[in-house]
């Protein structure tokens, strides 16, 4: 009996050893087969979305600094208008890359370019203070007192005429502050570029390498998708829901609108959506590898249609509904609440296939703790 069992035990041990070995062999063989290359997707997002976005913002921030210089040299209505347009362009370019604050250093750079809500009291204190205002001085002050919102505060106004804005720049401290702010933004833009660049701090390479989304909590795919979720939720609830009253008691509160002075709030949200859609598609060209291709590879469907197509349609509807509205948000929440409600609903509808379906297909972890692994 004992002798009869021994071969059985040997077989079990052999099987126990062979199984991992055969899996290893199959794994090595499978590397040559077709599968979805997540790193290639991340590479595509870096090459087609992140790096071009940074270049665009670099250019736009340099143009903003130069428009500020021109305006200060010759403070005319035309120069102010050009400066304001340069701010809008820089702001648009910024909002398209604002989502990529993926680690602590990037968050620090990003905060120094755009931290809301701005601290107007401190900005006024700087203007009325005695410290010499230079670019290094601005570099040292708090994030809520500089960056694009601070420039917006200086060059746009809700109740002043352009002439009054120009007159306000008779104050040499205001002039120095404007220039230093614009130069500091250009500096931060180049620092961000350097941080991602292969010639600089090489963050892009690290970002692409961290391609896991399941076991690896800090995986780039997880991070990106989480950023999309957070940005969508913030845009929807904080920047549309609260000023419109949809997320509160129904009363419109135009004073809560972000970037109210420039009337640019809805455009910011549109830029976010454009950036998110580009991330989703890995770029703008059909062949760019993105989450859309990943979902197609996984066979993800939604109402008998490819999930990727549904998500793209909902992105397009949300963006189109914003672009169709000519009023700035602060006016629209009062004068066209039904249009705002439609925009709100379009963005909400976009969240369903993203936050339920895509998240489930990609096994995305929302929380950065492992407390909820097995339910």
């Amino acid at each position, binding site marked *: 009996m004992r002798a009869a069992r021994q071969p059985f035990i040997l077989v079990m041990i052999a099987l126990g050893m062979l199984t991992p070995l055969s899996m290893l062999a199959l794994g090595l063989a499978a590397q040559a087969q077709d599968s979805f290359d997540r790193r290639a997707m991340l590479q595509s997002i870096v090459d087609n979305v992140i790096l071009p976005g940074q270049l665009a913002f670099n250019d736009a921030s340099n143009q903003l600094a130069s428009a500020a210089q021109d305006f200060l040299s010759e403070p005319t209505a035309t120069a102010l208008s050009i400066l304001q347009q340069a701010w809008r362009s820089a702001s648009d370019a910024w909002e398209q890359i604002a989502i990529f604050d993926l680690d602590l250093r990037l968050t620090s750079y990003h905060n120094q370019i755009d931290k809301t809500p701005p601290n107007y009291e401190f900005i006024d204190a700087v203007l009325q203070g005695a410290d010499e205002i230079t670019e290094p001085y601005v570099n040292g002050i708090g994030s809520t007192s500089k960056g694009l919102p601070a420039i917006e505060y200086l060059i746009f106004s809700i109740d002043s005429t352009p002439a009054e804005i120009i007159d306000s720049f008779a104050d040499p401290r205001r002039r120095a502050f404007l220039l230093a702010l614009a130069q500091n933004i250009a500096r931060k833009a180049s620092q961000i570029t350097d941080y991602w660049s292969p010639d600089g701090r090489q963050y892009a390479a690290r970002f692409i390498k961290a391609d896991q989304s*399941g076991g690896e909590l800090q995986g780039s795919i997880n991070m990106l998708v989480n950023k999309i979720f957070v940005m969508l939720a913030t845009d929807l609830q904080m920047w549309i829901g609260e000023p419109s009253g949809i997320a509160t008691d129904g009363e419109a509160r135009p004073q809560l609108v972000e970037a109210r002075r420039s009337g640019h709030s809805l455009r910011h949200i549109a830029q976010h959506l454009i950036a998110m859609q580009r991330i989703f598609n890995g770029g703008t060209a059909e062949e760019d590898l993105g989450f859309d291709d990943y979902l197609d590879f996984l066979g993800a469907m939604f109402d008998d249609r490819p999930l990727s197509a549904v998500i793209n349609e909902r992105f397009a509807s949300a963006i189109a509904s914003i672009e169709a509205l000519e009023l700035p948000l602060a006016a629209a929440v009062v004068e066209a609440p039904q249009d705002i409600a439609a925009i709100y609903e379009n963005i909400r509808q976009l969240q369903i296939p993203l936050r339920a379906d895509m998240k489930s297909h990609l096994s*995305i972890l929302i*929380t950065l703790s*492992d407390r909820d692994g097995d339910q």
Partner: protein
Amino acid sequence: METSSGESMLLNPAPRLASFRRHLNRPVDILPLAVFRIAFGALMFASTLRFMLNGWIDALYVQPQFHFSYLGFEWVKPLSGGGMTAIFIATLILSLCIMLGFVYRSAIALFFILFTYIELLDQATYLNHYYFVSLVSFLLNFMPAQRYLSLDARLRPQLKTRYAPFWCILALQLQLALVYFFAGFAKLNEDWLLHGRPMAIWLKANTGIPLIGPLFDYNWIALALSWAAAAYDLTIALWLSWRRARLPAYATVIVFHLLTAMLFPIGVFPYVMIAATLIFFSGGELRSALNRVGFRLAPLPRRAVIPHMRPSTAAKLILILFFVMQLILPLRHYLYPGDANWTMEGYRFAWRVMLNEKAGFATFYLADRTAGKTQVVYGSQYLTPQQLRHMSYQPDMILQFARYLAAQHPYAGQRELAVFAEVYVARNGAPSKLLIDPEQNLLEASRDIFSAPWILRY
């Protein structure tokens, strides 16, 4: 004579009750129980320390402004930040006491109370293995696990014994067998066996793992691993109980749990199971293994004074009730209509582990009917990401949050309020669907053990 603990019971069930009783109370080598106690204490120490160092006390129990209660345990509330830290420090010290076998009786009783208290604080932190820890620490209260390899036995030599009643070992083995069996039983469903889901989803999210990762893109691999996991869960307790298969079976336990540790962020669970399954080894096997790595454990004396080992009638009744509940709880979902994987009714405390890849998106509508106004609310405004994730696909938690929302309304109690929720849930790769009736005023829904009629069955 030393016998392997579980196998004789499983292979030769005693025909008569008296003989069965004798069988349960017969003295066996205490070493497996002592090893179990030491490993359990050590893992609880590591787990608690890790929890504290990760800042989870604050994140999970202090920061949240709202906690999801368990039905019947709404009265269990967290203490302040300092109080919760004190609870965790106490748990840490108690774990150490359990490991060292120091003031063990008090330590294990207090550990069970504190650990269970922590786990009852918020449904969003539910984990099957923490439930398992609570159950095991409860069982250990009835066992003389401190009477060997412990400070208690060293300080009070009269306490020391080399024997424990067989039922102690059997109870722990049975507890583990129930966990594995029901975990395997729950896997016998269409998604798991025919489609290899959610395994396929998880594997495809992990193709970046070196060497074996590329294999994970293949659906047949997911299917094969699903079947293997189900077979493993259903039969591993039997293999471990059979002495000749024990060693390869334990090797499988190690490989299986290390694989899950690699693929899924499930914390200390794999190590808890790897350590706990040591209870299936006999004293002789453990001693020879431990002596081989440098320990000097004396062989079991053939003639020794064997202490009285029969449990009290109360203890017997409690243990019988305990295991009856352990058999009923995992099956109670059959009393509810629909698939528990979707409705979540009867899902908890049932070893339904790793069955679903789910994600939900919930929009709440808080209507002030007196003022004729409705506002849109998202859980993210009130909940932590962890709470939000769990609430988004669990009807009971959705109901609790709806009530909380209404209670937060500035005119709560003064105006007629209603809360509705549109909740889309995607499960195991299938397109998202509505989880609950969006027309149901959740403030009018009752919260009890009965099936909720407002859940839309899958």
